[in-house]
């Protein structure tokens, strides 16, 4: 596999009513932002499970954004308030176990904040590029290295192969 310039992989979990619509507005306004972020739509920021974030890291994400409606603007009244408490705790937990704070970011973006969406994506992308690839997490694929190095090699071979496919 020819070594290309590394591009961060970022996932955004966004709520259907505010941030997804805000992203739509960024589109209709033809605002430009980096193409690294892929959106996964859920109904409400209250419905995003922290395990989704761990999964995303496991699947090679270098950064994650979680975004929903502003407090008091939740389409479901209170989903984002529950989310806020949850994310505050989860963020602190990840920080304590040594995951850099900027790997997981949060925002409130309303349906009318297309500009903010573009700005946030640009900022997150910039932050993640500054942090570099999330090797500390991705390297955990290379388990058993201590006793059985052969597994690590085999495992990495497969991962390299996957990247090739992604790059078309």
């Amino acid at each position, binding site marked *: 596999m020819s070594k290309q310039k590394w591009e961060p992989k970022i996932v955004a979990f966004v709520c259907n009513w505010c941030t997804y619509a805000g992203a739509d507005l960024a589109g209709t306004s033809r605002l430009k932002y980096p193409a690294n972020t892929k959106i996964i739509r859920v109904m409400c920021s209250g419905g995003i499970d922290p395990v989704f974030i761990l999964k995303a890291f496991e699947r090679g994400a270098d950064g994650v954004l979680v975004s929903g409606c502003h407090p008091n603007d939740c389409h479901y009244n209170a989903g984002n308030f529950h989310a806020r408490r949850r994310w505050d705790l989860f963020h602190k937990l990840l920080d304590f176990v040594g995951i850099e704070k900027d790997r997981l970011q949060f925002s409130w973006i309303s349906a009318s904040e297309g500009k903010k969406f573009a700005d946030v994506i640009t900022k997150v992308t910039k932050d993640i590029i500054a942090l570099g690839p999330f090797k500390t997490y991705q390297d955990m694929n290379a388990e058993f290295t201590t006793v059985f190095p052969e*597994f690590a090699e085999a495992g990495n071979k*497969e991962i390299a192969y996957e990247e090739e496919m992604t790059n078309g």
Partner: protein
Amino acid sequence: MSFKMEEKIISKDDLLKLCGDVIAKGHTLLAPGIAEYEQVKDVSQIRLDSSALPTKTSYKSYVFPKAEPILYYKRSKSDVQLIDVDVNGKKIVVLGAKPCDTNSINILKHLFNWDYEDEFFNLRQKHFVIIGLMCSSFDEYCFCTSVGSSPVSEEGSDLFLIPINEDKFALRIITEKGKEFIEPYSEFLKDGDEAKSNAVLESIKKPEVAFDSKQVHEWLGDNFENPKWEGIGNVCLSCAQCAFVCPVCHCFDLVDEDYSYSEGRRMKNWDGCQFGHFTLHASGHNPRDIQSKRYRQRVNHKFRYYVDKFGEILCTGCGRCSRGCPVSIDIKEIVSNCKD
């Protein structure tokens, strides 16, 4: 095996030099640490203490890892491609293995070669060299003598150490593999006196025999439905601590683990029979639905089924499961009660 045992003497310093060489050659050297058999990076780490109690875990995971991939797969539009895992065995030397651990691989060997030869296990096992060390102490959980072993058992060791004095060990070469291993170091060895070291072995205080394994075997056969089993599980919390620290428990689970939407691998992971969903069927039915049935299974598997199938008790009497049990369940006590 018709190998004839040889009795040698090695000084502690020379033994450590030998160890240094093993490490220098890039082999893995394991020695009992505080909680587990640790990989020795520096010989100063080594404590050859025959009076230490068994470590919290055995070295089982070096021959039967807690999780290992057994194949890789890749889905394409219409089929699935399988890719083998390439296992290259690496020499592993265990120094100072407890007599209650030394035989564990021999016991496990039956299971991994019964209907299907487990290449992963066999390859690693082939590269294992076990240097046993006589054991000079025991606590209330030890019961090696009840399962046909003893603190001075050489069974399973390739080489066996008996401390003669502060800085000398008698070294017994038990197997061909052991001889092959020690040959390059013959300069360290002097001839030993078997009678003298036998005297040391005999002087060791050994745990009292708590039960007769033959009687237990028999009782288990007749008492599957015995009301004694009921309530045994009341306090058990259904973790697998006992199975995972056991040197001979070997249940495993096969799990497909996806890397991505199209690729992944199949993993062989440890499993434990005390987990509530261990025998849960796809239908939702679980034949061992309550803890007492699970505990009955554990005892039967160890002291009856395995014996019936392979002629060996699936237990080395190390007492690790009891020592570590968060609710202090003592297998010795339960098995001792397996009588009318």
